[in-house]
């Protein structure tokens, strides 16, 4: 059972436009959500995160929105750049000592010049 779902395996966006990557989750006990970016043959790189007590977190071109009632979060990249082309993973964990990350399957973003 996939507790963290990224239903779009791929996304293509024009350079300069907005990229929106979506993530849904089923476990209402998750209290922290993270986005990772991964280039081929490299380890995932932490990008941005959001606590369940917030609905928005912004860091430069990256903004994550959380809608707890819908169990949905999204990552917005504005403006998109060709260097943003990578696989983006959504991950979540619960509060407490066991903070094992539960991962989505990833969305491959291609930003076209």
């Amino acid at each position, binding site marked *: 059972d996939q507790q963290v779902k990224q239903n779009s395996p791929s996304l293509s966006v024009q350079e300069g436009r907005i990229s929106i990557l979506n993530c849904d989750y089923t476990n209402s006990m998750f209290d*922290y959500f993270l986005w990772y970016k991964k280039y081929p043959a490299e380890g995932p790189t932490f990008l941005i995160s959001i606590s369940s007590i917030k609905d928005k977190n912004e860091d430069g071109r990256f903004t994550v929105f959380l809608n707890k009632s819908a169990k949905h979060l999204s990552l917005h990249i504005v403006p998109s750049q060709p260097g943003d082309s990578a696989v983006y993973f959504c991950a979540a964990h619960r509060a407490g000592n066991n903070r094992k990350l539960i991962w989505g399957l990833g969305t491959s973003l291609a930003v076209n010049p």
Partner: protein
Amino acid sequence: AAGVIQSPRHLIKEKRETATLKCYPIPRHDTVYWYQQGPGQDPQFLISFYEKMQSDKGSIPDRFSAQQFSDYHSELNMSSLELGDSALYFCASSDSGSSYNEQFFGPGTRLTVL
């Protein structure tokens, strides 16, 4: 800034051989995680260690074992290798003292079993 170091970066083994992967966490990080990522798959959690003790166990086969040492580095030992063990193996580290679990990943070890 220092990152997570993994060695070797690439490893080729034959079926039924053994392999040892090493992970050196970011300085002052006390928690280490191991993940396996097969082709076209998300990273699958294998096992984690906190202060040299196993803290959680995921889908790690019985043929695999791991440990964390006093300097916080960790080793993943894989025996009786099978073709299906070919994957990217990532190590991540985190600081248990942080409020949330931002895990920082190493570059991975690509294991190929022939």
